[in-house]
């Protein structure tokens, strides 16, 4: 896509057409006599990047031309120049504020499952015990925090209290997820899922009306809070990208430059998706890279800077709201800077390999389950399915402290170091309290850690399996946090194992350099958890650069970049060896979205004539002539065919190409002319030519040159498909016309290309659903 601008300039300034084209195209945008809606697209249609960018350039030229006319026009031109920045600023501020609300709301709601702060109901457990000096920091919190068993009237730790807590936990979880599922069903069905596959498809140039609307925004933000609070194995980080894109879409309507031009709107959406990740993880740079690596399709440098600014604004607003009350943007900020040793790269790479294995395992089974849901009767009971999974999750989660707690809290616990304030099982080491540095040195584990290891192993299996069934249900659900959680658990387990290995063999020559003295070895299991989280997330999403940047921004561990890079790269290698695509691409394929992947290479030797429509035995291509058809005949063509655009030729006999006209524009223009223009009747001649033959006796002619695209991209029938696919990818074409000896022969649309690729990969070509 980078060549897009250049190619346009070439065709615009060098070709002989320049003047004519400028006239024609500037008419499209600047004159008000065109009916509204020309240049827009129907639902589920592909956009034509070239045409939209050309339209924008014409509009821009018009503004520059008018600039000389006075102060007001100068002001208008300045407004036009900075409107992109203002728009992304608004998106960033809105996304940051929304993220703050969601963060606070989610922690409060998810603690509501266990109890309440009686004197100040709006505080979650951590905030409730924030300034209390009697904090015991075990499960139960402080004296102001009342569990449901205490609120009901059963105090103590007996079986009765346990059962009451258990029941309340399950009931609240069911209530929350039921609300989320019903909200999605009643108010905005588009709010379900993670949204990233759809955002990717939209950014690649596809229209899904209502997907980025107000109701989707409201429903998704509430649904996210409720479903995370319901204790399901899902995160709210992926949906943040969708939310930010909703803001991007809504705010772009304030600025007609972006609101009416789909290609320009996608620049705002790219910046918005950066803001989404920026607030989801508190990682502004990671967000920009995520937008570049994973989501965006067309990413010029201008968009990079806008994304940077948007991510900055979003992070700044979120930081001032300070939702976690820890003066950091993120939940799992680590505060240690222990060194790591070269031998540790082996377990890090091992973690990366496990991450890649789990990633491809997860993708395979999740896609299989989603396909089963799509095709079987299970798909008919979406709400029942949500409730059932919630019930199972809550039932199994509650007895295990590591699954009972909020997943982000668990990751924070796993990646942090055992300090003196930690009294949990995980930090129960056989410490010697007579030395000063007893907390930084590694020692043998106590009974508490042994229990914790058992519970963590069970949590690992449970989380790893239940996430497969959870992701893809009809509620807002993200994938980042659960896959990171699985990785963090495995990482912590391996980290503890490594620690014990070193502590037990501290004299051994392999581990010699890891211990400063006989008493003092430093192995940080938290670091392994961090690397594990990165590896597993990398295995599932197949990200590399943005993943590592997100991880070190997330944890603040700048010096652990090399371990994370090693793990991310290994997990990508292993994952790619076992299955080609990441989870988002797999979901795009499952749904059959028309997404032309720019990562894959096209290596077949077919030519344009093999792909082109009409095929050998089909009726000839449906064309419109430039100056001999009446309105009636044109309407008959529109009625009888379902093509989305028609080539315009000089005459049916010669088949020399004049231009291309879109169905929607044609319908709108004819309807408008019949209504408003005097003398246009059904036997008026439709003129696409510049010269209108004088005919004083006949009805008034209908001149439609303004809606004609006079620079359609054409290729010859012998062009190799490799080139054609590259053109579709890099220029963002919607269709290209095929000629033979200069005469029009056929047409290739984006859908034809996608079908062709699917066919060559031995898939059902009809699985590409939309236009």
């Amino acid at each position: 896509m980078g060549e897009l601008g250049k190619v346009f300039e070439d065709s615009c300034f060098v070709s002989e057409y320049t003047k004519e084209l400028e006239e024609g195209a500037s008419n499209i945008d600047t004159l008000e006599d065109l009916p509204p809606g020309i240049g827009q697209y129907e639902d589920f249609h592909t956009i034509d990047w070239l045409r939209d960018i050309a339209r924008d350039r014409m509009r821009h030229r018009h503004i520059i031309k008018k600039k000389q006319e006075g102060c007001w026009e100068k002001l208008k031109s300045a407004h036009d120049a900075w409107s992109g920045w203002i728009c992304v600023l608004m998106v960033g501020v809105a996304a940051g504020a929304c993220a703050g609300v969601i963060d606070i709301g989610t922690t409060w709601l998810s603690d509501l499952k266990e109890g309440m702060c009686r004197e100040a109901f709006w505080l979650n457990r951590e905030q409730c015990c924030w300034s209390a000096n009697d904090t015991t920091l075990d499960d139960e919190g402080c004296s102001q925090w009342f569990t449901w068993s205490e609120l009901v009237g059963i105090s103590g730790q007996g079986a009765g209290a346990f059962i009451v807590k258990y029941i309340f936990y399950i009931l609240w979880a069911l209530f929350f997820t039921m609300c989320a599922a019903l909200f999605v069903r009643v108010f905005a069905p588009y709010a379900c899922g993670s949204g990233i596959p759809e955002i990717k498809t939209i950014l690649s140039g596809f229209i899904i009306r209502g997907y980025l609307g107000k109701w989707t925004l409201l429903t998704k933000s509430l649904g996210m809070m409720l479903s995370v609070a319901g204790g399901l194995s899902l995160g709210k980080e992926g949906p943040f990208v969708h939310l930010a894109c909703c803001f991007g879409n809504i705010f772009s309507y304030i600025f007609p430059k972006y609101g009416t031009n789909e290609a320009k709107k996608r620049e705002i959406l790219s910046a918005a998706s950066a803001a989404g990740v920026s607030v989801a993880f508190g990682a502004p740079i990671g967000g920009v890279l995520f937008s570049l690596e994973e989501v965006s399709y067309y990413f010029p440098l201008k968009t990079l800077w806008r994304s940077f600014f948007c991510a900055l604004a979003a992070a700044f607003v979120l930081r001032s709201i300070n939702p976690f009350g820890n003066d950091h943007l993120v939940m799992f900020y680590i505060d240690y800077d222990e060194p790591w040793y070269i031998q540790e790269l082996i377990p890090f790479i091992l973690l990366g390999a496990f991450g890649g294995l789990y990633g491809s395992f997860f993708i395979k089974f999740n896609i299989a389950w989603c396909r089963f849901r799509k095709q079987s009767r299970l798909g008919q009971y979406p709400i029942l399915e949500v409730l059932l999974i919630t019930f199972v999750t809550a039932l199994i989660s509650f007895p295990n402290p590591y699954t009972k707690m909020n997943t982000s809290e668990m990751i924070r616990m796993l990646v942090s170091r055992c300090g003196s304030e930690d009294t949990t099982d995980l930090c129960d080491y056989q410490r010697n309290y007579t030395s000063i540095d007893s907390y930084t040195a590694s020692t043998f584990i106590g009974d508490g850690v042994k229990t914790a290891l058992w519970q963590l192993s069970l949590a690992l299996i449970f989380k790893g399996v239940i996430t497969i069934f959870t992701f893809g249900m009809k509620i807002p659900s993200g994938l980042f946090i659960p896959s990171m959680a699985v990785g963090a658990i495995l990482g912590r387990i391996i980290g503890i194992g490594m620690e014990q290995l070193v502590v037990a063999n501290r004299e051994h020559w392999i581990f010699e350099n890891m211990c400063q003295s006989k008493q003092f070895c430093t192995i940080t299991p938290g670091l392994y958890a961090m690397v594990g989280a990165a590896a597993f997330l990398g295995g599932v999403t197949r990200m590399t650069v943005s993943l590592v940047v997100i991880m070190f921004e997330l944890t603040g561990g700048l010096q652990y970049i090399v371990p994370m890079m090693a793990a991310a790269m290994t997990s990508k290698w292993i994952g790619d060896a076992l299955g080609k695509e990441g989870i988002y691409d797999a979901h795009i394929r499952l749904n059959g979205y028309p997404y032309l992947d720019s990562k894959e290479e096209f290596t077949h030797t077919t030519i344009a004539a093999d792909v082109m429509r009409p095929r050998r035995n089909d009726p000839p291509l449906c064309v419109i002539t430039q100056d001999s058809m009446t309105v009636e005949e044109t309407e008959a063509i529109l009625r009888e065919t379902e093509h989305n655009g028609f080539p315009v030729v000089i005459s049916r006999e010669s088949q020399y190409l004049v231009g291309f006209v879109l169905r929607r524009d044609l319908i709108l223009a004819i309807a408008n002319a019949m209504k408003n223009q005097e003398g246009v009747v059904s036997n008026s001649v439709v003129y696409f030519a510049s010269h209108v033959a004088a005919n004083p006796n006949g009805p008034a002619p209908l001149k439609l040159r303004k809606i004609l695209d006079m620079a359609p991209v054409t290729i010859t029938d012998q062009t190799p498909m490799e080139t054609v696919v590259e053109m579709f990818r890099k220029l963002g074409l919607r269709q290209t016309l095929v000629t033979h000896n200069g005469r029009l022969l056929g047409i290739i649309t984006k859908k034809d290309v996608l079908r062709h690729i699917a066919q060559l990969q031995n898939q059902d070509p009809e699985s590409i659903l939309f236009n």
Partner: protein
Amino acid sequence: MYIKIATVSFLLVLFSNNLSCLASEQPSSFEDVRCKCVCPKYQDKNNTLPDRTVYISDNVNPRLCKCEYVVKSATPELCPRCECKYESRNTTTIKVVVVFVICIVSLLFVYMLFLLCLDPLIAHRPPRYEEHTNEEVNLDDQTVRRVPQQPKRRPVRQMSIIDHVKDEQKKWKGTVSEQRKNIYDRHAMLN
């Protein structure tokens, strides 16, 4: 719709503010600042292992956030190893946000119940009732004709606003049912 939500939540916030003002007569422990000291477990000469490592003191001067002032059982050996941090938060933000969330969730919940239960009943009214409304409209028109120009505008404009809202709602319902068909029935997307 949004304005209504905003005003309702604003009122509720005011209300809860009043409540909290009343409640704050008694000593409350939900302060916005704290000084948190974390001390290592350290066995001194007297061989007593302290039972706690975290000491929190609220309502302190930032300059006095030191181990000597916060840790009651401080010993000269212990204090140099303690880390004290002055932290602040904003409970008002939390309160406003949580009340806002509760309001929106309950509003949507009520609206959802309305859409699921009452709306189908209203939509399938018996035909006689409809005739009745038609009559009413006619009557209305007659009265409108009789009265002078000035007060005539108001009901018309009100009607048009209500019609507009109804139109919007109808359009929205149409798009939602279309989306529902795509996702829940045909399973065409978002699987």
